[in-house]
């Protein structure tokens, strides 16, 4: 009995220590990475002196337009592309200096999924998933066990014996994910993993990636040109342009305060054009009846999401939502809402005071000049 408790305490201490040290460490360190292609006489710098640190257990997004060098960059991480200069360190291995044999071993710890899935058409679902295990020299019975686990994990139970040609795009990517996870990697590289899928399937694959990230503590590097993908699953994001990272930070921070023009363009993809909204709102306020309009700015809210219903319950007022856009990110809700408070001016003032003092929602009273 006592020993049980003792053991439990020990295990807990061990786990805490383990996770704490993990939490603080960078799994991927990229230092002045450069890749030049020579096309005839000309030289093209696809990745230009890029430095970056990606932390253990996070989902790190890299967004950029076509030709920005995203694919080249992610292929440099597992050395499918040989860098011209600079270094990549994953875990305790400096990928850029490994011998061929060590590189092959290191690659078994780095999963990768692709835009076009890249499954072997000649193998069934289970044999595709078993392939990396064969490469790693895992015995047959253990292989079968592991394959079944993975099939269940990605939700393809019952489809083990199907060939890729008999699967939908989303199912193919699930096979791709299972295959990438087979050897229990620490890092998963995704190059446009959802770009060939329709929006609904994209979401289901993104949900799967998040659940894997949470369940296995896997670090995910996600390349995309869709801000929706970043918004939905990433913790941090870097914006890439012409081979360099021009802006990076927490997804919410980048969403709420985009600095570079490219970044603003990407934010527009999901939030719509905020300047236009503003103009529309101003017009609305010219209207006589529009008094007591508040602009509520949610940044990473998780606790205040029920604010509107709280206000209606706590104070004797009606709330009229005029306009707004709230979007969910991994770090909570983000967006702006315009609401009009209707009722006794005294109650309204109390409600405004409550929002200001009791919640972390940023608030602005929109004045209309009458």
């Amino acid at each position, binding site marked *: 009995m006592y020993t049980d408790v003792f053991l439990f305490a020990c295990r807990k201490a061990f786990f805490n220590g383990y996770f704490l040290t993990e939490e603080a460490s960078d799994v991927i360190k990229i230092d002045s990475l450069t890749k030049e292609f020579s096309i005839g006489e000309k030289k093209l710098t696809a990745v230009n002196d890029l430095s970056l640190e990606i932390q253990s257990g996070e989902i790190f997004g890299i967004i950029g337009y076509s030709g920005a060098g995203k694919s080249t960059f992610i292929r440099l991480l597992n050395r499918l592309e040989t860098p011209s200069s600079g270094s990549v360190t994953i875990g305790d291995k400096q990928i850029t200096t490994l011998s061929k044999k060590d590189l092959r071993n290191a690659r078994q710890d780095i999963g990768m999924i692709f835009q076009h899935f890249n499954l072997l*058409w*000649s193998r069934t679902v289970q044999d595709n998933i078993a392939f990396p295990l064969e490469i790693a020299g895992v015995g047959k019975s253990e292989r079968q066990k592991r394959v079944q686990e993975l099939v269940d994990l990605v939700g393809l139970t019952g489809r083990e014996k199907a060939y890729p040609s008999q699967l939908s795009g989303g199912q193919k990517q699930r096979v791709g994910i299972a295959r990438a996870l087979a050897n229990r990697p620490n890092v998963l590289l995704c190059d446009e993993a959802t770009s060939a899928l329709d929006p609904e399937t994209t979401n289901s694959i993104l949900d799967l990636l998040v659940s894997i990230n949470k369940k296995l503590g896997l670090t995910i590097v996600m390349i995309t040109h869709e801000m929706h993908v970043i918004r939905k699953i990433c913790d941090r994001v870097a914006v890439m342009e012409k081979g360099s990272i021009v802006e990076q930070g927490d997804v919410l921070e980048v969403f709420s305060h985009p600095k570079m023009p490219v970044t603003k363009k990407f934010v527009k993809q999901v939030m719509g054009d905020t300047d236009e909204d503003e103009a529309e709102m101003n017009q609305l306020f010219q209207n006589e009846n529009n008094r007591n309009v508040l602009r509520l700015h949610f940044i990473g809210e998780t606790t205040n999401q029920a604010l509107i219903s709280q206000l209606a319950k706590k104070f004797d007022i009606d709330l009229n939502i005029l306009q707004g856009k709230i979007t969910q990110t991994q770090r909570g809700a983000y967006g702006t809402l315009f609401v009009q408070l209707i009722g006794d001016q005294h109650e309204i003032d109390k409600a405004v005071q409550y929002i200001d003092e009791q919640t972390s929602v940023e608030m602005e009273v929109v004045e209309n000049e009458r």
Partner: protein
Amino acid sequence: MKDEFFANLDLAELYQATYETFYMTILSLIGTFIIGILLGLLLYLTAKDGIWQNKVINWIVAAFVNIFRAIPFIILILLLFPFTNFLIGTVRGPNAALPALIIGAAPFYARLVEIGLKEVDKGVVEAAKAMGAKTSTIIFKVLLPESMPALVSGITVTAIALIGYTAMAGVIGAGGLGNYAYYFGFQRRAFDIVFVCSVAIIVIVFIFQFIGDYIANKLDKR
């Protein structure tokens, strides 16, 4: 009926000739398959951006393939007489035809193999690399299985060319249906024999084509 229309036909001889044709075709086909795949792989792997990219080896293999593909088969047999004599100890009979058959057909097949390998999705090869696969794994578990339908239809086409070659080889003494048709039919004005041999060869071609198509279809899960 047989006595009227096929007065010269000897069934035992026809059977023997058919057997020899099958014998030469199948043995040379096996040799062609192995050597053709080796040469085809070498062409593919040493090509530009290939896994073993190597200009010199690629050039040498390509030159070998092109030269032997350019020589008409009937001349190739004559050219290889000394080599065959050295290797087999004779220039007569079905065995003597094998070196020429293989050397004549393998380069042709090698090109078909190369085309088949080029059709393999680059992304799949890259995925295997990303999993840490060795080159031998990539060859045996990715390139060959993924190109198998093309390799099989290639070997079918080659088999049919080979059946034609065995007939030519027969004319200069290798045995088989070509030999039978020429010496026992054509030279003795026994055209019924020539006719029966033609039919026999057509049937053999159809059999190979049918088997080849069937296997290629079975293998193709795309």
